[in-house]
C-alpha cells in the first residue's frame, strides 16, 4: 500500500469533499480538548484545524489584532477564506486565543448568515471529582447538538467503537515514536510531524491503514546516520514540518517532542468504563498531558519531558514558544532549573506561525547543536 499520503502535510480539502459528497457532515476541531471520538460516533468527519502554510492572515488580524497568537489568527484566516471546506467547527476554551477564534467566527457566522455549525465546549483547567462531571455535561451537550445536526443517534456502543478506533491510531503512533528511540532512526523529526499532521487531513480509518503500511515498510528505510545531536522539541502548537527541517538541516535530529500536533495530541489509550462511557471520555481528556493550559499538570509535563529525554537519549531540548502564546510562554519559570539540575541543555526560541525567522532559528540551532553534540 502506498503510504506517501502520510507525508503530505499541506492542508487538503480532498477528504472533506469526498465525505460531504456522501451527504455527510465535516466539522473542524480547534484544540486538543475536543474529543474526536464523539464526531466519529456521529459519522461526522473531524478535521483538526491548523494553520500550516498560511503566509497572510491579514483579514483575521483585523478581527483579532496584532496582539494575538499567529497560529490562532491563521486558523481564523483559513476559516474566513474557505481553505477548509467545512460545515462548521467545534472548539473548546483551550486558551483564550482559541476562544476568540470561536467568538469572532460565531459573530461573523451570524452577521453574514453563513449558517455554519459553530459550537464551543467548556473544558476545565484541572482534573478533579468536581471538574470531570462538569466537562461530561459539556460533552453531553455536544452529543445532543451533533445528534440534532446530523440526525444520527450517538450511542454508547458507537462511542466505544470510536474509542477503540482512536486507540488503534494511538497505538500505531506510539509504534512510530518507538522508531525514533533507535540510535540511527529511520525517520526524521520533520517526517514524523508530517505523519502525525496527516491525521488531520483524512478519516481515521484511512489514517490507520496508511500508518500500518508505513510501519510495515519502516524496516526498509535507510537509517539516518549523520545526525550530530538528538533533539527534543517542546512548546506551542507546531504544525509546520519545515520548522523542524531547519533544525535538522543543521545537523540535529528531532527524536522526541511534547507538541500537541505530535504524539501528545494522540496520547495514551482511552480506557472506557462501560457504565459511564461519556464520563470516561471526559476523564481521559482532562487527564491527558497535552498542553500547559491545564493548571495542575505543569509538573507532570516537566516530568514527562525529562523522562522523554532519557527514553529517547536526547542531547538537548529546544523550547519554541509562539509569540503571544501565553500558555506555553511561562514554562521556564520552573522547567529551566529542573532541566539544569538534570544536566539537560535547553534552547529557548520565539516563533511565529509564518516562517519569517528561519534564518535566525538556523543560526541558533546550529550553535546549540555544536554545543551539545557528543563524540561517539
Amino acid at each position, binding site marked *: 500500500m502506498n503510504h506517501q499520503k502520510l507525508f503530505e502535510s499541506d492542508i487538503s480539502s480532498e477528504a472533506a469533499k469526498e465525505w460531504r459528497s456522501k451527504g455527510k457532515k465535516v466539522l473542524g476541531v480547534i484544540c486538543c480538548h475536543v474529543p474526536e471520538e464523539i464526531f466519529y460516533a456521529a459519522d461526522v468527519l473531524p478535521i483538526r484545524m491548523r494553520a500550516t502554510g498560511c503566509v497572510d492572515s491579514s483579514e483575521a488580524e483585523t478581527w*483579532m489584532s496584532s*496582539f494575538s497568537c499567529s497560529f490562532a489568527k491563521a486558523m481564523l484566516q483559513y476559516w474566513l477564506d474557505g481553505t477548509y471546506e467545512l460545515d462548521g467547527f467545534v472548539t473548546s476554551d483551550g486558551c483564550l486565543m482559541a476562544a476568540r477564534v470561536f*467568538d469572532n467566527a460565531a459573530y461573523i457566522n451570524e452577521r453574514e448568515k453563513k449558517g455554519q455549525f459553530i459550537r464551543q465546549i467548556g473544558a476545565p483547567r484541572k482534573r478533579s471529582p468536581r471538574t470531570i462531571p462538569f466537562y461530561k455535561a459539556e460533552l453531553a451537550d455536544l452529543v445532543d447538538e451533533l445528534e440534532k445536526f446530523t440526525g444520527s443517534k450517538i450511542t454508547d456502543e458507537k462511542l466505544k467503537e470510536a474509542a477503540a478506533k482512536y486507540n488503534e491510531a494511538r497505538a500505531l503512533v506510539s509504534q512510530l515514536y518507538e522508531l525514533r528511540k533507535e540510535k540511527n532512526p529511520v525517520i526524521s523529526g520533520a517526517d514524523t510531524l508530517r505523519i502525525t499532521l496527516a491525521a488531520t487531513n483524512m478519516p481515521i480509518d484511512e489514517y490507520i491503514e496508511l500508518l500500518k503500511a508505513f510501519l510495515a515498510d519502516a524496516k526498509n528505510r535507510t537509517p539516518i546516520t549523520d545526525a550530530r545531536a538528538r533533539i527534543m522539541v517542546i512548546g506551542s502548537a507546531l504544525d509546520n514540518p519545515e520548522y523542524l527541517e531547519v533544525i535538522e538541516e543543521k545537523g540535529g535530529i528531532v527524536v522526541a517532542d511534547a507538541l500537541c500536533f505530535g504524539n501528545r495530541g494522540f496520547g495514551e489509550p482511552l480506557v472506557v468504563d462501560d457504565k459511564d462511557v461519556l464520563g470516561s471520555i471526559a476523564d481521559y481528556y482532562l487527564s491527558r498531558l497535552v498542553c500547559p493550559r491545564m493548571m495542575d499538570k505543569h509538573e507532570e509535563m516537566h516530568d514527562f519531558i525529562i523522562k522523554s529525554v532519557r527514553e529517547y537519549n536526547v542531547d538537548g531540548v529546544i523550547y519554541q514558544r509562539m509569540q503571544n502564546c*501565553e*500558555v506555553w510562554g*511561562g514554562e521556564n519559570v520552573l522547567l529551566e532549573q529542573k532541566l539544569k539540575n538534570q544536566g539537560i541543555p535547553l534552547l529557548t526560541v520565539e516563533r511565529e506561525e509564518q516562517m519569517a525567522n528561519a534564518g535566525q532559528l538556523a543560526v541558533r540551532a546550529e550553535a546549540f547543536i555544536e554545543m551539545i553534540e557528543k563524540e561517539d
Partner: protein
Amino acid sequence: MADVKNLEELVLKGEMTIVEFACTKIDGSIERMKERNPEMLWTMEIQKFMWDGYRDAHKNGKKLVFYGGSVPTEIIAAFDCVGFYMDTIPFRLSTNPALTAKYIDEAEKYVAPSMCGLDKTELGAWLCGAYGIKPDIFVYNSVPCDSSRIAYPALEKIIGVPTFSFDTPFRRDERGAEYLADQIEDFIAFMEEHTGNKLDWDKLKYYMENANRNFELQRKCADLRKHKPCPLPGRLLVLNGTTNAAACYPIMGDLYESELEVGQMMIDLGMGACPDEKYRIAMLQNMIWGNAGIMDWMQKEYNAVAVMDAFGFQGDIIYEHMDDRRDCLKVMGKKIQNNPMIHGASGPSEHHIKMVDEIFEQYDANVSMFLGHVGCKHTWASAKMVSDMVQEKYGLPTLFIDLDAIDGRYKSSDEIKAQIKEYFETVVMQ
C-alpha cells in the same frame, strides 16, 4: 519624608520592600493632601487601609491570604484573614516605571515577553524577594487570562504555601454558577482546614452585607455619571478599580459614600468634572493605570470626561437570601463569572459588547476609546466586534491605543497624549 525617587532607589537596591514602599508613599501622599486638598483625603484612606492591613496582618495575629483573579473575598474575610489581591502590586507600582521595569526584567528571564505586565511584575517581584510579606495561604482562579493561568500555578510552586485554585468556566450560565458554588464549598473546607476555624456564617453575612452595600453604592456613583455635565472625574473610574481588592470591607463603601457626596454636591452646584463639558468618553477598555493623569489632561485640554468604563458596571449581582447557603455560594459564583475586566472581558465577547452597548445607551457618550493594555490579548481579540457595534449603532469611530498598563517603557505619557490629541483634532472635533 523621603521623596519618591529616594524611596524608589531604596527598593531598587533591595533596601526597602514593596509593602514598606507603598505604605510610606501613601503616608507621604496623605501628608501632602492634608496640606493641599484635605477634602480629597477619602481617596487615599482606602489605600492606607489596604496596605497597612497587608503589612500588619501577622503583627495583628491574622493569616495573610494572597489571591489572584476573582475569588470570594467575603469568605477570606469571614475567616478573619487578610486578603491580599496580588494585582495591587503592579497596580500600585505602575506609576513607578523604574520599579516595574526591574521586576518585569526579572520575570522575563523565564517567561515570554508577551506575558501580561501584571503577572510579570508579580512574578518578578516575588523572585526578587521584594514583597516584604509572605502569605500563609494562596488562592487563585483560572481567570482572567492565559497569562495568569501560567503565572499563578508557577507562583503556587515558588511560594510553597497551602494553595487552593478555582476553575472558572468560560461561559456564564447556571451550570457554571453551580460548578463554582461546588468549588466554593471545597474552598470553605480548605479554609477551615488551614485556619483551624469553622466558618462563622454570621461573619460571612456581615461581609456579604458589606458587599451588597458597596455594589449598590457603586451603582449609585455610576448613575451620577449619567448626569450632564458628568460630576465626577475620569480618574475616579481608575480608583474604583480597587473594588476587586476591598469589595466586602466597609471602607470601600465609605469611599463610595464620599464619592457620592462629592458628585451630588457638584450636581447641586451645577458643576462638572470639566468646566465646559463637550465630550463624554466611553472607555471600551481602560487600562491607563500608570498614566491616570491623562484623564485630567483630557478634561482640561478638550473638555472631555471619561463617563464610564467597563470596570464600573459591577452593581447588579447582590446577595438576596443570606440564610440560604447554596444561594449565597451561587451568587459568589456569579460574581466570579461576571467580574468586569477580570472575567468580564475574558469570558465570551458578547458580554463585553453588551456592556459597552449599555454604556452608550445609558451615559450618552459621544467619544469612543479603547485604551488597551497589550497584555490583555483576549480583549484586543474582541475589539473589532465591540468597536463595530459602536460604529454601526452609534455612528462613532473608536480610537484604539495600545499601551502597557504596567510597563512604562512601552509607551510614554506624551506618546499616548499625542495619539489622543491627533484623534480629537482630526476626528472628534471635525
